[in-house]
């Protein structure tokens, strides 16, 4: 869904007191060379506060970028700023203001969630009592209040993801780095997680940089997107710049998909056959437009007498973006 302009203005309002500068993160020719692999290649962009999606295929450099911004690993060349601070020299200050949720498992198994999250709050500098209070609040916020005394080892993947989010949020950071937060979650768990992230970012004024290899999955909660591929910047900007490019209607029919595609093309629509699917470009993802085209497509399917299996609005896949104008 497109983020409504009203929502955007709420976001900037909520963020006005957070960062002194408009820039949350800025990268200038950021490069990271591992032996034999160029993880990041001259990345230059600027990101304003809000909920930001960092999109790229696996191995495109998303995790490397987060680690550089946290000051955990040095860049080979170029520079980065977080809140105007340099991670190589002000790592401590930056890490005090940041919450980080890594992509992979990172939780102890033989400890209760509440015990661990409280420990992490203290590791971020919160005094014992405040750490205890914040932990109880945050466990409620992520929906684990009832189960908080259980050992993490017995948690489901979804619950573990929430503990990971809780430990990243417990010290009330100004910026959250979430590395593939929906990884391994079922569709319900994914929706819950995204709703939680959206709330955290839009209601509580915590900026979020969230990575994903699936644009469609996270675009609905993002204000802006940064797309990288092979360590290079593909595109960066408000989410509205992207959705215009990539709306696709996937029509699944039992037979004669070629005929359907040919008919639609003859009517002046962009349509391509992908097996039993016909992908029809919606042109812009504005709902009115999509609904109008959907109506027309259904009409054509009926006219040709084809058995319609499914009709889905597809979010842009990365390849769509890479093919699009840059």
């Amino acid at each position, binding site marked *: 869904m497109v983020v409504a302009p009203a929502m955007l203005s709420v976001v900037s309002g909520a963020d006005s007191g957070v960062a002194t500068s408009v820039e949350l993160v800025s990268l200038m020719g950021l490069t990271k060379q591992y032996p034999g692999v160029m993880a990041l290649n001259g990345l230059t962009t600027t990101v304003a506060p809000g909920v930001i999606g960092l999109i790229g295929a696996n191995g495109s450099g998303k995790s490397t970028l987060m680690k550089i911004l946290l000051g955990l690993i040095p860049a080979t060349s170029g520079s980065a700023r977080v809140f105007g601070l340099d991670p190589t020299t002000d790592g401590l200050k930056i*890490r*005090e203001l940041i*919450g980080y949720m890594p992509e992979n498992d990172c939780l102890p198994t033989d400890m209760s969630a509440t015990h661990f999250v409280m420990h*992490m709050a203290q590791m971020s500098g919160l*005094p014992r009592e405040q750490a205890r209070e914040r932990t109880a609040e945050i466990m409620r916020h992520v*929906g684990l209040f009832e189960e908080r005394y259980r050992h993490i080892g017995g948690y489901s993947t979804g619950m573990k993801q929430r503990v990971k989010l809780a430990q990243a949020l417990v010290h*009330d950071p100004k910026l959250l780095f979430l590395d593939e937060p929906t990884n391994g979650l079922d569709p319900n768990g994914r929706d819950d997680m995204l709703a939680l992230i959206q709330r955290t970012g839009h209601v509580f004024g915590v900026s979020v940089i969230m990575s994903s290899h699936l644009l469609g999955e996270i675009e609905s909660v993002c204000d802006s997107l940064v797309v990288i591929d092979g360590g290079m910047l593909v595109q960066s900007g408000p989410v509205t710049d992207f959705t215009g490019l990539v709306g696709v209607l996937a029509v699944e029919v039992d037979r004669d998909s070629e005929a359907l595609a040919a008919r639609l093309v003859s009517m002046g629509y962009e349509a391509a056959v992908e097996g039993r699917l016909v992908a029809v470009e919606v042109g812009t993802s504005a709902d009115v437009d999509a609904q109008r085209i959907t109506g027309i497509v259904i009409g054509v399917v009926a006219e040709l007498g084809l058995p319609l299996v499914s009709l889905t609005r597809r979010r842009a896949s990365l390849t769509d973006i890479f093919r699009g104008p840059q």
Partner: protein
Amino acid sequence: MTDSRGEIYDLGYRNYDGPRLGRAYAVRSLVQMSVRNTFGLGRGPMAKFLAFGLTLLAFIPAIAQLVIGAVVPVEDFTFIAPEEFFGTIQVILVLFVAAMASELVGNDRKNNTLVLYFSRPIEKEDYVLAKIGALAIALLALTLLPQVLLFLGNWLGAGDGTEWISDNWTELFPIVGAAVLVSAQLASFGILVAALVTKRAFALVSVLGGLLVIWIATEIVVELTDAGAGAITVVMLSPLHVARGATLVLFGAVPEVSPFDGSGGDMTVGALDLPGFVWIVAIIVHIAIFTALAIRKYQRSV
């Protein structure tokens, strides 16, 4: 994205404007947590059993001394002299270090929790120092407390308590000094090995084998070379020998050879006939090198 669910979450979050105590506090918190972990607090019964069992074993010589001292009517009975204490409980110390070092750093690495620590306002060396500090503090329960108990017992058992304490209070300096140095040395060695050897079971065996095998090898080399010039180098590389030498020096016992000590450790140490300060310098150099290498290992991780 149901709203009802969202409302449940909303009960919790508030912004935090309170104090953020920073790096030193974070490191203290990590030390505290790690010491607790060492003794199995907040963990399963097996972890507690191992830690408290070994600690109890370390107390046995001191308790035996006090019990026998109370029963046997001999003036100034000495079952274990203070300088013999570390030699007596050496194997227990090694077992404790082997078990706990891999526990302290192995779990964080295995569970990948390390990256969460490093995303906190601490530096990587802080993590290493906190872990070494925590293990050293835990070791004090084995190295310092029994000696203090022995000291107090001897004081209470003395005919004239006032006279005894005025004669013996300076003993406390070597008791504390030796316990701190040995604890720091074994802790830094243990954390270093546990940091280098990734598999936990192997780390445990490596610390255990490392200390004891080096000990035995050193004994053999010294024996074969008749404590010649080459032997000094070998002994200086053996953590347990350096610890032995340093404690003996602190208690003023080198190069005396004690008839009570069956391990022969101080015979080796005594046979080298080095000036006392060399042992003290050596143990401090050990602590510095082990710590530096462990930090170096962690600088390269994540």
